[in-house]
C-alpha cells in the first residue's frame, strides 16, 4: 500500500507532534497539491520575529503528513528569515529520503510555511 518509506518518515506519519490549531495565529498558509489534489494547512505564531508556535493539518498521504510535521519541527524557534530559507531538501534529509513520486508532498510543506509567513508579513504591514 505505501511506497518504500523510511523508518523516520513512518515515525512522523504515525505520531506527528505538530497537529494542532495554533491559538490566535499570526499567519495562516493553506495550499493545495496540484499533482494529486490534497490540502495542507499551516498556522504560525510569531514573537520577536521568531516562530514561537506552529501547527498543521493535512489531508494527504503519509509523505505529506510526515513532511508537514517535519517542516513544523524545523521551523519552530527559527527567525522568519531562517524559516524562509528552509527547502524541500531539508525536509527530505530529515525524513531520511523520500520516494521520487512523493517529492511534491514535501514541496507542499514548504509552500504552506512560506504562505503563512507571507500572510503574517502582509498582515503586519497592513497590506494584502
Amino acid at each position, binding site marked *: *500500500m*505505501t511506497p518504500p518509506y523510511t523508518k523516520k518518515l*513512518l515515525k512522523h506519519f504515525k505520531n506527528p507532534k505538530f497537529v494542532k490549531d495554533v491559538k490566535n495565529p499570526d499567519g495562516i498558509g493553506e495550499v493545495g497539491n496540484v499533482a494529486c489534489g490534497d490540502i495542507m494547512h499551516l498556522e504560525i505564531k510569531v514573537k520577536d520575529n521568531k516562530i514561537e508556535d506552529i501547527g498543521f493539518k493535512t*489531508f494527504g*498521504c*503519509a509523505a505529506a*503528513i510526515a513532511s508537514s510535521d517535519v517542516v513544523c519541527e524545523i521551523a519552530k524557534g527559527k527567525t522568519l528569515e531562517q524559516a524562509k530559507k528552509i527547502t524541500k531538501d531539508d525536509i527530505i534529509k530529515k525524513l531520511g529520503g523520500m520516494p521520487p513520486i512523493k517529492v511534491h508532498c514535501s514541496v507542499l510543506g514548504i509552500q504552506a510555511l512560506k504562505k503563512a509567513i507571507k500572510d503574517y508579513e502582509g498582515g503586519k504591514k497592513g497590506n494584502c
Partner: protein
Amino acid sequence: MKQIYLDNAATTKVDEQVIKAMLPYFDEKFGNASSVHLVGQDSKNALEKSRKIIAKSIGAKTREIIFTSGGTESNNLALKGLFFSNYPNKNHIITTKVEHDCVLNTCKWLETQSAEVTYLDVDEEGFVSLEQLKNSITDKTIVVSVIHGNNEIGTIQDLEAIGKICRERNVLFHTDVCQSFTKVPINVQKDNLDLVTLNSHKIHGPKGVGVLYIREGIKITPLSHGGGHERNLRSGTENISGIVGFAKSVEISNTLKGTRTKDIERMTKLRDKLIKSILEIQDTKLNGSNGEKRLCNNINVSFSNVEGEAIGGYLENSGIYTSTGSACASHSLETSHVLKAIGLSPVQSNSSLRISISKFTTDEEVDYVLEKLKKIIIKLRRISPLVR
C-alpha cells in the same frame, strides 16, 4: 505481528491443494506437451484434462479454451485479435469507462490503429446503461467488451441482458470475468458470451496463467506466432504446472456444481458485516452497487475528509493490507477512473478504501480490522484540515 491480507482483488494466496497439484509438473512430469514421447505425453494429458475442467466450469467446449499468461494477455488477444481480423471492414469497439486498465489501454492503442471506440457511461452504482449500449451499436461494430465484476467497486453487470442485445444486433460480446469467476455463475450459452477472459491468480491459483474462451467459429488474429500452439492462436510452450494449478483452483472452488458454495455464503456474510459496521462510522459512503449485484468479496468506502493512502498506511502499521483509489497511491497521481466514472469528486476518490476479502478471511480478522479502522479514521480526521 499478525498479518491480515485484505487485498484479494489484487491477487490471492495460492491454495495448498493447488501447490500440491502443481509440484510434480516441475521435476517429475516436466515434459513439453508438444513432444511425442512419453514424458511429453504426460504433460499433454495434464494440459487437456485441465482444459476440460475449465471449459466445463463455464459451459464451454474444450476446444474453445485458449491458455494465455493471464487476464491482461487474454484481454489484449481478444480485442486486438478481433480488430485485426475485422479491419478494415469493421473498426468499431464498444467498451465502458469502468474497465480494467488492460482493456482501456488496449482500446486507446487500437485508436491509434484506426479503431473507433465508444466508452459507455455507467450510473452511480457502476452499471452500464443498456439503452446507451443499444444506441451505440453501428454496422461497423465488431465487439462489445464489458467487465463482469468490477475490480474496484464490485459492481456485477448483467451479462445475460448485454449478451442478448449483442446477439440480436449481431455483434460479438466479450467479457472480462477475472474478478467474478467462481464467485458468480457464468455460462457462455445462457449469457450469450462470445469471448471470455479468465485468470488464475484471483482464485487462489498461480500467477502467470489465464484463459481466453473463444466461441467456435469466431476468427481472431493471433498476437504471438511460433509453433502453432493453442490452435495457432497463442504460440509458445504451455505453462503446464501453472495450467494444472489453475484447473485445480477451479475444481476446488466447486463452480462445476453451479451452486453458491459455502465459501461464497461466508464471504457474503463477512462483506455485509464489514459494510454495515463501516457505514456506522460518520460521514462514510459505500462506492459501487448497494444491492445483491456486488462481488461477495468487495467493500469500497469513501471516508469524508481523510486520504486513502494514509488510511492504508495506518492499517498496514497494524498488519492489515488494503488498497485505495486515491491519487496519492497511484503511479500516475491520478484518481481512479472507475470512481470518477461513478461520479465521485477527486476528494471523494482520494478518500476511498478498498477491502477485498477471500475464503481465508475469518470473523476474528474482520472484527480486528473494524476495531482498528474506527480508531484510524478518528485520528486522521483530527489531522485533516477539512474537518472544521
